[in-house]
């Protein structure tokens, strides 16, 4: 199988396949398409979140190049879907993100600096504030799926109808057993969960076609007796509509409706898998072209422009505000200091004696040899 040629073909076919779309590639509302009911303020806020996401991504990549953060997974091209899905959540809903869902996390309440903290090696960014319903990012692929399902199931069993759970994962994740087991449970127990498959066409170097022979990822839902929808993931309005509907159904299903939904949000990974990855080794840039013409930021801008909402002045204000927020976040993240005792904290609710003694030992060693002795493990 030749990955490149297939991908090359595949934006052609992708574009033809049935998927929910509201905006055309320039941001005009497609004939017959119905816009979601969002106020001007909401639309502008969503746009600002998109701009923030794009700038954050650019900045994070450059921070990584400077050695100020570790390996980073960019989201350019995918931020439209991230922002829109999180906008569609109610505050009480829970979000299970992956390592790539920076914007989704931020929109649902995580501070920008907390996104950077783990990239600087601190778990502060995983220590979600009490009033934010966002789980730490999941790195082992697909493992969040049964957990998100389980949390949603728990809310249902407890009669807490005010919580739905949204679970993100990639196209690659659909090949893992945990995807299968999680979706199957969701169907059997009819739980209020929304699965969002961010199909960016690549799992590192593995193209979507090599992940599975099924035509779409959405249709996999059928095997679990749950509903699915395929949406243009570069169209923030379409994503918002699809997600909002799934969230509604999860919490207040109609007569013959099931609670869970699988959303396949069809996107493209514009850039590298992570800052350690070099996509030129395994793909050429052609497929990206098609998608780049449908850039979610530009498209929403076009839409707002068409509605007369996006003046130059407003753009300038947004850019400045975004710049400032990112700057502050970096400062905050860079101010975090290492606390070696943290290694031993929270392993258990109560620290076992053996661990206490290990902590003592490390304290003694630091006293005796100084922190410099720990500054670098030899390569």
């Amino acid at each position, binding site marked *: 199988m030749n990955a490149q040629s297939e991908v090359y073909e595949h934006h052609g076919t992708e574009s033809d396949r049935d998927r929910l779309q509201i905006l055309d590639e320039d941001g005009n509302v497609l004939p017959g398409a119905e816009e979601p009911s969002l106020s001007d303020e909401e639309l502008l806020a969503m746009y600002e979140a998109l701009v923030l996401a794009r700038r954050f991504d650019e900045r994070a990549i450059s921070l990584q190049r400077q050695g100020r953060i570790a390996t980073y997974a960019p989201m350019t091209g995918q931020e439209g879907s991230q922002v829109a899905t999180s906008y569609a959540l109610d505050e009480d809903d829970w979000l299970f993100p992956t390592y790539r869902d920076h914007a989704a996390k931020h929109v649902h309440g995580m501070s920008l600096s907390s996104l950077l903290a783990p990239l600087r090696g601190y778990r502060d960014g995983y220590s979600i504030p009490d009033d934010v319903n966002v789980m730490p990012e999941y790195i082992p692929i697909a493992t969040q799926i049964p957990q998100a*399902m389980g949390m949603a*199931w728990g809310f249902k069993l407890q009669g807490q109808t005010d919580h739905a759970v949204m679970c993100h994962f990639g196209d690659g994740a659909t090949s893992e057993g*945990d995807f299968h087991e999680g979706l199957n449970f969701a169907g059997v127990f009819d739980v209020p969960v929304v699965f969002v498959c961010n199909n960016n066409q690549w799992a590192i170097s593995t193209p979507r076609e090599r992940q599975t022979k099924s035509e779409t990822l959405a249709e996999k839902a059928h095997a679990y007796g749950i509903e699915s929808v395929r949406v243009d993931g570069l169209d923030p309005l379409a994503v918002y509509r699809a997600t909002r509907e799934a969230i509604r159904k999860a919490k207040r299903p109609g007569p013959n409706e099931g609670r869970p939904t699988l959303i396949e949000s069809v996107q493209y990974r514009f850039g590298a898998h992570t800052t350690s990855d070099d996509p030129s080794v395994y793909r050429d840039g052609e497929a990206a072209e098609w998608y780049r013409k449908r850039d979610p930021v530009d498209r929403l801008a076009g839409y707002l422009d068409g509605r007369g909402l996006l003046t130059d002045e407003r753009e300038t204000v947004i850019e400045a505000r975004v710049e400032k927020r990112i700057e502050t976040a970096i400062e905050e993240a860079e101010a975090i200091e290492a606390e070696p005792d943290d290694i031993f904290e*929270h392993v258990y609710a109560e620290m076992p004696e053996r661990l206490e003694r290990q902590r003592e030992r490390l304290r003694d060693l630091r006293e005796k040899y100084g922190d410099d002795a720990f500054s670098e493990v030899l390569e």
Partner: protein
Amino acid sequence: MSSYADTVREHVEAAGEGPGPDTGHDAVRETDADGPEALTLVEAVCDGLYSEMRRDEDVVVLGEDVGKNGGVFRATDALYEAFGEDRVIDTPLAESGIVGASIGLALSGMRPVAEIQFMGFVYPAFDQLVSHASRMRSRTGGRHGVPMVVRMPYGGGIRAPEHHSESKEAFFAHEPGLKVVTPSTPADAKGLLTAAIRDPDPVVFLEPKLIYRAFRETVPEQPYEVPLGEAAVRREGTDVSVFTWGAMTRPTLIAAEELAEEGIDCEVVDLRSLSPLDADTIVESFRKTGRGAIVHEAPKTGGLGAEIATTIQEEALLYQEAPIRRITGYDAPIPLHALEDYYLPQAARIHDALRETVEF
């Protein structure tokens, strides 16, 4: 020799008032209205589940065949009838799903008790256990604990088919963030299970199925905790300390009695908690006798026997008068049942090794 019943009584007293006598659980325990009654280990597990489910409605039981069927060993017998299908839940056949779902249930505020039908079938869920349940508290900086129990029958000796006799407690004990316990008596089964369910952290609860129905013992009807992390000295002795757990406790005690007739006085320590280990009790016993042995079913290499022996030599080398012997399963898969008695430690093998240790 510290009376086992005494220990239990102490714990019951320490626990204070339970939720009062219960009349609705006749199917689980045919209650003598006046007080406690003798249960087998598997009945005590069921009783423990029952009394915690009654006390705390966040406790749910889930797994394969735990509902209507009451579990393949009847460990959840009659719970379905008592608590209904929303609290005693038959799941699809998918262990990663079961444990992953349990993590999610715990995150939502419940206290799931998952059953894995046999330890040999826990491996599909290994990732959820060692990569997630174990570290949710530390990765979230303390915000999210995962108060859940994963119960599973383990060990050999019941003439079961392939993959039904595994004893791989060492896998779990090597993972920081998990607790691992196993009872050797009915009363401990209930008390440890109660403590496990109430514990804020994930507990792997291993049930020695060989002794599921081996004997009965008085098990208080009131809920009570046997604290996690505390070993029990089952027989006091002065010549050699033997550390064991689960189903191996009985042959060890038998070997100890045989050796007593030869004038060798064994101390038998039932660890109960395999993680965290009760190093204090282990080392204290060893300091007294200066000789030690470990009995477990699992393969020798990399088994918990190694951890115990190493801890002892770290803490009490100057007391050590003989090599610490390991009487364990061999470094081979446990065979199909015609040969399993040759694989598992039994009294003769234990006896022989202990004599050697004392005579060293």
